[in-house]
C-alpha cells in the first residue's frame, strides 16, 4: 500500500504503476486495504473510524454510510461507541466498512480470520461475498486455506515469496499439494 518501499519489481494496476505512489493516492485509485489486526483508531468512535475511509470532500457521504450499515447493521447500533471497546468481530466489520467508504474496485484483505471465532469468521465471509456480488474484486491473504478455497475463484500459494501453485480454486480444492504446502510436511 505504499508504506513499505519496494526494493525491486513493480506493482501495476489497471495499466499504471503504483510503485511511486503514496498510500492515500493508492486509495484514490480505488484500491482499499483491510490490514491484519484491523488497525482501527482506538480512541475514535465507530462512525469516526468509518468516516476516515471516505475522501475529505464527499457529496454522497450519507449513501456510503448507508451501504456500510446495510452490510453490517450492528455497526449502526454501535456507531457512537469507542472502537477499542468492540469485540474482535465487530472491529473487523469496522475495518471493512472503513475500507469500503472509498468505493473500491479492489479490496485487499489481510488475514481476515485473525483473532475471530469460527462463527464470526463465517459472518464476515458472508459479508465479503455480498461485497463481491456488488462488483468489487477481492484479494485475500488467508491462512484458513480450506474456507479460502471454498469461497474464492482463483488461488495462489506463496512459498518464500514465490508463487508455487496457482489455479482455479475449484480445481485446487482437492489438490494434495495444497495441504503439503500448508503443513510444510512431505508425506
Amino acid at each position, binding site marked *: 500500500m505504499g508504506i513499505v518501499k519496494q526494493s525491486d519489481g513493480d506493482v501495476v494496476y489497471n495499466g499504471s504503476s503504483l510503485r511511486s505512489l503514496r498510500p*492515500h493516492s493508492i*486509495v484514490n485509485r480505488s484500491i*482499499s486495504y483491510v490490514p491484519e489486526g484491523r*488497525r482501527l*483508531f482506538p480512541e*475514535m468512535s465507530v462512525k469516526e473510524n468509518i468516516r*476516515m475511509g*471516505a*475522501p475529505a470532500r464527499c457529496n454522497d457521504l450519507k449513501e456510503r454510510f448507508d451501504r456500510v450499515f446495510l452490510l453490517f447493521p450492528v455497526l449502526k447500533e454501535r456507531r457512537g461507541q469507542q472502537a477499542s471497546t468492540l469485540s474482535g468481530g465487530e472491529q473487523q466489520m469496522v475495518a471493512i466498512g472503513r*475500507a469500503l467508504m472509498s468505493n473500491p474496485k479492489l479490496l485487499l484483505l489481510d488475514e481476515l480470520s485473525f483473532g475471530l471465532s469460527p462463527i464470526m469468521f463465517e459472518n464476515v465471509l458472508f459479508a465479503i461475498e455480498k461485497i463481491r456480488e456488488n462488483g468489487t474484486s477481492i484479494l485475500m491473504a488467508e491462512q484458513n486455506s480450506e474456507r479460502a478455497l471454498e469461497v474464492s475463484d482463483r488461488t495462489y500459494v506463496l512459498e518464500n515469496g514465490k508463487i508455487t501453485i496457482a489455479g482455479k480454486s475449484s480445481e485446487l480444492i482437492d489438490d494434495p499439494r495444497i495441504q503439503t504446502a500448508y503443513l510444510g510436511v512431505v508425506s
Partner: protein
Amino acid sequence: MPVGLTDIVQNLVNGLLQGGFLALASVGLSLIYGVQKILNIAHGAFIVIAAFVTIDFSILLTPVLHLDPLISIVLDFGVLIVFGVLTYFGLIYKTENKGFEGPLLATFGLSIFIEYVITNGLIFPITISPTQSYRLVLIPVIDPSYGNGAIAQNQAYSSNVLNLGGITFPEPQLIAFLLAFLTIPLLHLFLTRTYYGNGIRATAQDWEAAEFSGIDIRKTRILSFALGSGLAGIAGGIYAFTNSVFATEADVSLLPLILAIIILGGVGSVIGTLIAGLVVGLLISGSNFLALEVLTQYSFPSDIGVLLTFLIFLIVLMVRPSGFFGKVVK
C-alpha cells in the same frame, strides 16, 4: 497579618486565572507531540514571539489606528501559523522520520536564535571606509524594553478591577482567562467534528492506518504543526496582557511547566490539558501562598513554592504515570 478566608479564596482565583494561560500555552505543544511525536523545544520561544508582536502592536499601531491591543491576538495566531509552517518545512520535514533527536536539536537551536533576534535584532554593520559605515537592518530590535521586561501598552482597562465580595479580578487577567477558556473547547470541537480534525486524531493514534485509510498524513501533520504554533501565538498574546515579558524567556525556561501540564493532562488530550493547566495554576499559587505565609515563618526561603509545585507533580506522576486522561500504558 493573620490569614483569612478571603486571602485563600483570592489565592485560588489567582491560580485559576494563571492556569487558563498555562493550559493554552501547553495545548498546542500537546497537539504537535501527540500527532508527530516531535517535541518542539522552540514552543516557548513561539509564545514569546507572539507576546512581543502584541506588545509592539500596542505601542506602534494602537495609538495610530485606535485598535484595541486585544485585536493583535488574531494577528499573533496568523503570524505564528506562518512561523510554524516555515519551521516545519525548514527544520522538521526532513528529519522527522529519522528519529527523535533531529527535530529536538533543530528546534532547540531555533529557540536560541529567536531569543537573540528578539533582543538584538538581525543587524549587520557594514564599514565602507573609516568615516563611512552603515547598518544593514534585516530585522529591527523586537523587544522595546531592551531586556527590562515589557507588557502590552494602551490597554483601556489595564487598571480596571472587578470586585466580588472582597475577591478581586483584574480585568486583563479575566479577559485572558476567558480567551483561553473559549479557545480550548473550540479546538476540541475542531478535532472531533471536522474531517481534518478527525484526520489529525487518526494520524496521532495510528499514522500507518491513517495512510492506508486514505488520509493524506502529510497534510494532517502540517496542519497540526501550524495549528499548534498558532495556539502558541494566542497564548503569547494573552501572556503580554498580564505579565512582563522578557526576551530571555524565549530560551527553554517556559518548557518545564508546559511539559508538566502536558504529561498531567495526557499527551494529545485537549480537555485533559485544560484541566491540567488549571490544576497546575492552582498548585503554583497554592504552593507560593503556603511558602510565603507559613513556611517562611520556619525560616524556609520564600521561593520554596516552586519546589513544592514540582514535588506534588512528582507524586501525581507516581500514582498516575500517564496523567489524568492518558491511557495507562501496559
